[in-house]
């Protein structure tokens, strides 16, 4: 082997081993045939082209059919979950906010009817907590009110800075508050004082959050692309299984994101005095560090890893009959969703019969479904149940026409399976609308 060939083979290491085994010799032949006899080293252009081609084979999603878009969605989903995890970890140890909230309330005259709220300064990382005390218009000077508040803080053990322009700083045990006294109209007309406490994010969250988004996005992209490459080379049944696991997972993360935005948009008025309800865990993403969500996220790539390949695609496959494929896919989807809904109903009934609990006791929280079903069962059932309740009746829009046109295109067994699946898709969600089914649904949700 010449030195040039050895160099080319070294560059081919950029490609996945499986690909190198199948195509390595052929590519080296092509490279060597195109080389002038006096060449001793690979030209830089060839080297870069091989490295780029190899990295694409390793890390890029398959070509076409919106695969890149799916990989991007995966990147966004994992970045989002990672950010949620980072926020959870950074704010988890932040017990000080409760004491600061109470401390800022104690700055005010005890007898005054007061209202207040606590809020996160969404774009501030590190630094003091800002407390704004707004008094309803009154005869007393603001300087006096500020001096009184400062005196109460000192009595409470705070080290207070001088008052400058109705503003002073308080320090205690590493905690800092900047208090500003003002006068004006209050959001609550019955109160005489309104206090607003605004917290910064913990300082480490800025680098941790950026790292989480970058690394999470990268991990999501790589995992998504890898899963899609595997997806592409699986048998149709395997592809269906991967799609049925992956799509609800992404939907779940998207739902959590939308839900978080909705909660935070709607929370401005409702948060008063309900500090602990603060929805900053980014919804479901806050659970990133917990095993169930990690298991759900990992399910799809694991499935892709386990399912066998369809074999070499050397010969062009005969054209697939879309109606046949559609009937199989829709049947499987209906049955998977139906199985999950049925599992919920059956587990509820069995539990009720076995323990003799009545309907009130069942939804009281004493019979948590998470404790009844093992995690590997609970995760997929939960995923399919939530998706199925919404998607399965919608899927009837596809399966009913397929029942009509598919009668002559597939065997009687496949057709009857679809019929049964379609009926289950109408009946099972309808059962959840009955009083009994409603209890079961509530029990599952709780």
């Amino acid at each position: 082997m010449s030195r040039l060939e050895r160099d080319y083979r070294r560059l081919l290491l950029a490609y996945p081993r499986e690909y190198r085994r199948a195509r390595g010799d052929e590519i080296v032949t092509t490279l060597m045939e195109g080389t002038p006899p006096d060449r001793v080293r690979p030209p830089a252009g060839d080297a870069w082209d091989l490295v780029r081609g190899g990295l694409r084979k390793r890390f890029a999603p398959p070509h076409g059919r919106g695969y890149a878009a799916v990989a991007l969605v995966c990147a966004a989903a994992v970045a989002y979950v990672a950010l949620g995890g980072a926020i959870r970890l950074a704010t988890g140890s932040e017990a000080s906010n409760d004491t600061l909230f109470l401390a800022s309330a104690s700055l005010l005259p005890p007898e005054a009817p007061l209202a207040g709220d606590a809020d996160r300064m969404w774009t501030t990382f590190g630094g003091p907590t800002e407390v704004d005390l707004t008094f309803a218009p009154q005869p007393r000077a603001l300087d006096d009110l500020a001096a009184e508040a400062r005196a109460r803080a000192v009595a409470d053990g705070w080290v207070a800075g001088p008052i400058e322009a109705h503003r002073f700083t308080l320090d205690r045990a590493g905690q800092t508050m900047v208090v500003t006294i003002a006068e004006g109209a209050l959001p609550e007309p019955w109160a005489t004082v309104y206090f607003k406490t605004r917290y910064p994010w913990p300082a480490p969250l800025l680098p941790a959050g950026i790292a989480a988004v970058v690394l999470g996005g990268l991990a999501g992209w790589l995992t998504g692309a890898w899963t899609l490459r595997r997806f592409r080379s699986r048998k149709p049944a395997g592809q269906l299984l991967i799609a049925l696991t992956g799509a609800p997972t992404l939907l779940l993360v998207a739902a959590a994101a939308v839900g978080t935005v909705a909660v935070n948009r709607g929370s401005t008025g409702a948060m008063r005095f309900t500090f602990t309800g603060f929805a900053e865990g980014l919804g479901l993403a806050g659970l990133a560090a917990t095993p169930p969500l990690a298991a759900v996220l990992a399910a799809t790539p694991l499935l892709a890893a386990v399912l066998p390949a369809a074999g070499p695609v050397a010969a062009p496959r005969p054209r697939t009959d879309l109606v046949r494929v559609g009937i199989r896919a829709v049947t499987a989807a209906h049955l998977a969703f139906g199985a999950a809904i049925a599992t919920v109903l059956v587990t509820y009934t069995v539990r009720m019969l076995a323990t003799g609990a009545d309907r009130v006791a069942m939804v009281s929280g004493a019979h948590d479904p998470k404790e009844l079903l093992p995690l590997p069962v609970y995760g997929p059932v939960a995923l399919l149940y939530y998706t199925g309740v919404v998607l399965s009746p919608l899927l009837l829009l596809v399966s009913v026409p397929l029942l009509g046109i598919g009668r002559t295109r597939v065997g009687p067994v496949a057709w009857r399976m679809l019929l049964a699946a379609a009926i289950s898709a109408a009946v099972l969600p309808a059962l959840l609308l009955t009083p009994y089914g409603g209890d079961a649904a509530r029990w599952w949700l709780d």
Partner: protein
Amino acid sequence: MQEPTFFILTALAEQPLHGYGVIRAVADLSNGRITLRAGTLYAALDRLTEEGLLVVDREEAVDGRLRRYYRLTDDGGAALSAEVDRMRANATMAAARLRRRGKLAFGPTS
């Protein structure tokens, strides 16, 4: 269809070729404008094979080296033919517009 893809399919339209044969044919057909490198060529060959436009025709060992020949499938021929029709229609349309522009610019002589 991107230009390198077009030239690869064109190169294989007449006869099956191996990797270096495709590189040379594409360079000839494009008057040296397109020089395919191996990484790019094999990425395109893989994609076109996956799309069913090409298949492996045969393998040969020459001087102990493996050569794999690729052949256009019927689908590949149809895709190339559709692309040719599209390009021809575009060219005809552009030529017609240019002719009208020429007439407008110089105007009728009489």
